[in-house]
């Protein structure tokens, strides 16, 4: 079989493994199956990426060519995002096993089945070339995620899951309305066909309304300010493994869908006429500043990082709003980098929660001495988030500032830098408690975490530095992807 024929299995394997997983007894077997299928996905994507960078790969399901059948169309952008998701899944699952044993002691088969569904949904969204298929996979991943969030141990978890459910469904509905409108206008759901037929009807109000619906619907899924409200609760209350996985993948996939629909389907000409750049610029800037300020406010470290995620989405929105190859590639790079740093940060915070039992920052006091490896990982990943040189965060900020400067947009430069300073404050808040404050009196000495929790965490920390030095994978592929999205125009 050629790599083209393997490619759909990166979605199908986890999707088919999910029901099997639900039936498996015990704790180890479901995890093993989940791990095996996610790893297989990652391996497949690792082979797909080099192929897809040069020439888009097209796979027709059941040999039905579009527009009748469903097509998987993979180019540099979605191969890049797909690889990111699969690799993050592969790193997070071994880490998650220990925390899941604690947090979801019963019926782990179902838990891993849901995890696989959520994973398969995200992969499906990424690889598919069909706008309605995106919706189907979006629902698969969202529904399973709602249930996963509800598995959290805190009493607020079901409520957070319910809020996420209501808001997420609103978003998905908006997206569906948008897709419905363009289907009425063009009679096709295949993205390439849509891209060919839409310019002819671009002047119609229906297409413009569809654009607005899709932007708002996806905007909710990517937690764009002010549509971010589902995110902090969901991240803060979900089981640790789910939090880490969501934080590093879910919003990234939503941004991918946005890029794909806006630039490939609607096309650059149409986007320039629409109020896309202004809306994303304004919301991105507000998101960066306000979400960072709110993050400083938080006493719960998980919630703090969740607001930081909203701020980071703001950076991506800001980057995309420049509607240029440089801007989009900066956004793509930041998407990748943010997955690395936020996963490492959430892992270290969740490890502390695992050891100490509380997510409150006061519980972090004195942990620098007692859990040095975990807290060092937090500091290093935090430095990456702030944007210290030799980390991925530096690359992100550098590209973003370069784009803004080349555009002559000094306001954006200032916003990015102020955002970095605010990041220093909220990362510093946790790091200071851990390293410079004495442990609260009367607390039992805390031991360093299990190696099974430390190793994946440090792999991610190492990745934060590796991709901060060697930018060939991220920057070059992202630039190629951005060029493909923009259709070769500068």
């Amino acid at each position, binding site marked *: 079989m050629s790599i083209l024929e393997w490619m759909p299995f990166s979605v199908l394997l986890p999707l088919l493994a999910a029901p099997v997983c639900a039936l498996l007894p015990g704790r180890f077997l479901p995890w093993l199956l989940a791990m095996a299928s996610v790893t297989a996905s990652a391996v497949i994507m690792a082979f797909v990426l080099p192929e897809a960078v040069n020439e888009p790969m097209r796979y027709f399901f059941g040999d039905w060519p579009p527009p009748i059948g469903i097509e998987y169309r993979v180019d540099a952008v979605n191969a890049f995002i797909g690889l990111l998701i699969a690799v993050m899944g592969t790193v997070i699952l071994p880490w998650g096993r220990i925390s899941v044993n604690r947090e979801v002691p019963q019926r782990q088969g179902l838990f891993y089945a849901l995890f696989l569904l959520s994973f398969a949904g995200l992969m499906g969204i990424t690889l598919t070339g069909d706008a309605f298929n995106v919706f189907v996979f979006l629902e698969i991943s969202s529904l399973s995620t709602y249930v996963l969030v509800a598995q959290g141990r805190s009493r607020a978890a079901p409520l957070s899951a319910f809020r996420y459910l209501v808001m997420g469904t609103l978003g998905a509905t908006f997206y569906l309305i948008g897709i419905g409108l363009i289907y009425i206008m063009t009679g096709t759901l295949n993205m390439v066909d849509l891209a060919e037929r839409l310019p002819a009807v671009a002047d119609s109000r229906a297409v413009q309304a569809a654009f607005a619906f899709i932007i708002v619907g996806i905007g909710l899924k990517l937690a764009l300010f002010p549509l971010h*409200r589902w995110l902090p609760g969901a991240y803060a209350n979900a089981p640790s493994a789910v939090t880490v996985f969501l934080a590093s993948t879910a919003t990234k996939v939503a941004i991918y869908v946005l890029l794909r629909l806006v630039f490939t389907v609607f096309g650059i000409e149409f986007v320039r006429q629409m*109020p896309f750049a202004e809306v994303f610029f304004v919301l991105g800037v507000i998101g960066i500043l306000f979400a960072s300020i709110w993050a400083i406010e938080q006493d719960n470290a998980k919630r703090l990082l969740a607001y930081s995620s909203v701020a980071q989405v703001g950076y991506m929105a800001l980057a995309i709003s420049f509607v240029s190859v440089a801007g989009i590639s900066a956004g793509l790079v930041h998407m990748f980098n943010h997955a690395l740093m936020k996963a490492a940060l959430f892992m270290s915070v969740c490890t502390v929660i695992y050891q100490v039992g509380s997510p409150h920052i006061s519980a972090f006091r004195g942990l620098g001495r007692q859990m040095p490896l975990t807290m060092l990982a937090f500091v290093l990943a935090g430095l990456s988030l702030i944007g210290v040189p030799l980390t991925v965060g530096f690359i992100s900020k550098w590209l973003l500032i370069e784009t803004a400067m080349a555009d002559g947009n000094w306001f954006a430069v200032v916003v990015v830098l102020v955002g970095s300073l605010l990041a220093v404050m909220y990362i510093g808040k946790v790091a200071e408690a851990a390293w410079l404050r004495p442990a609260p009196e009367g607390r039992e000495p805390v031991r360093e975490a299990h190696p099974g929790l430390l190793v994946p965490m440090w792999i991610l920390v190492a990745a934060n530095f590796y991709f901060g030095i060697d930018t060939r994978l991220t920057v070059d592929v992202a630039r190629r992807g951005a060029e493909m999205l923009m259709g070769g125009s500068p």
Partner: protein
Amino acid sequence: MFEFILPPAILMIAGAVLIGVARPALRPLIALATPLITLYAIWQVPDGVQLTATFLGYEVQFVEGSDLRRLFATVFAIMGFGGALFAFRQSKWWELSAALMYAAGAIGVSFAGDLIVMFLFWELMALFSTVVVWCGGTERARAAGIRYAIIHLVGGIVLKIGIEGLIIHTGSPEIRALTLGNFDTWMIFIGVLINAAAPPISVWLADAYPESSPMGGVFLSAFTTKTAVLALIMLFPGTELLVWLGLIMIFYGIIWALLENDMRRILSYSIVNQVGFMVVGVGIGTELALNGAAAHAFAHIIYKGLLFMSAGAVLYQTGVRKCSNLGGLFRTMPLTTVCGTIGALAISAFPWTSGFISKSMISSGAAYEHMALVWYLLVAASAGVFLHAGIKFPWFVFFQKDSGLRPPEAPWNMRAAMIFFSIICIGLGVFPGLLYSLLPYPVDYKPYTPDHVLSQLQLLLFAGLAFFVMLPMMKRTLTITLDFDYFYRRMIPKIAGFIDRSLASARDRTIEAVLSGGSRAITQVRVQSYRFFSSRSPMGQMAIWMAVLLAVIVLMAFSRG
């Protein structure tokens, strides 16, 4: 022999990391060996660009050799060795490790072939110097470290904007002489000057350095400001503004050091003062003056390291940091006294010490350019240096009245480090050719001309005389004399107190106004926005926001389409 040049900074970083993972017994060995191996590697770097890498799509020059760069890297490595020798038995391993990382940053900046690499190592220095400050371990060190980090963070951001702007507008990250003409170069200029402790942002230095541990201060005294001087030499030679900034630094340092009581704070102000001399040298910009700035940086690192070592040894043995509580230590700490005095003589540019052969190059640089005012001010400042660092520091710490403290002599490794640096101070003074042969431009400067030695001795003599004239009066303060007592206890404190109070109240009032106004505004922004947009607000609001957003986008789209 080797095709591949091992970057000295990477060696140093490897050593610093190794300290962390090695067995405790091996740590001292690694801490001492790393700077020496690095020093060897530094001298293996030939001229020109040696090692390039691709970073962010630019061909960055990771290692570039030249005389000037090697000179600075050499003294940084020597300082790393001396500091490690001074500290290795007393410091915690993380302090040693952080200090070596800090030194590695300085060496990395020295060899950086372009602005991107320079910035990388610049930030490395900022990061680990903050850790070194924190290693002081006290509550004051914690707070000072945070203030220090914020200043350097802002400085780094300013520098980064400048560098990135310059790269975008000129397309080249190469390190070359720049002229202050546009926004980008100004930002780079300001970013570098923040690290040089130039006014108006000099205060971070005397704020943070004295809060470090007795050992940490030795490292802190060396790297940050001198890498800034190196950056100024490479980026802004001959910028006239620097002459005046440097003069302000010189006199700022002298005045504040004379008013100060904390011994390491005196030395910290004296760093500002000495860096001022170098900045003036860069500002004059002739070959002689640039040579002088480089030579002075070299000499200064050694003797200021020596002074911080002697102060650190005293602090380590007594735990007392205030001059008024010290004195008479020469009885039990003779070696520390001798070494501290050698450092004090060197900083005062006494003939046959390293300060003499380097500082005079700068003032001669001014004289040859016929900058009469600058020359007069530099000469006057030399006398001031002798007053605050040359006499005040050793006198109050080691001689003066007997404080009753009888600390034992410093541990052997501290003594060894002090002797090592004393030898360098005197060796360079007696054999100036050693240092001159390392300088970036050919030297035909003769420091030991009769009139030069004589004039310097005269200057020191009169400055010393001034001090010794005051000395009997000072001694009298020990016996109770009302008239002078008033002067000593009331008058000076009153004047100083008045200046201090008015300055402090003005400062407090502005800070308070900014803070209270700012925090009110921030609270409003924070609380109000949080009320409307937090994840805990009702779900219905979210739906409303979706509708609003949809309406806005649709209306904007329709109005255009």
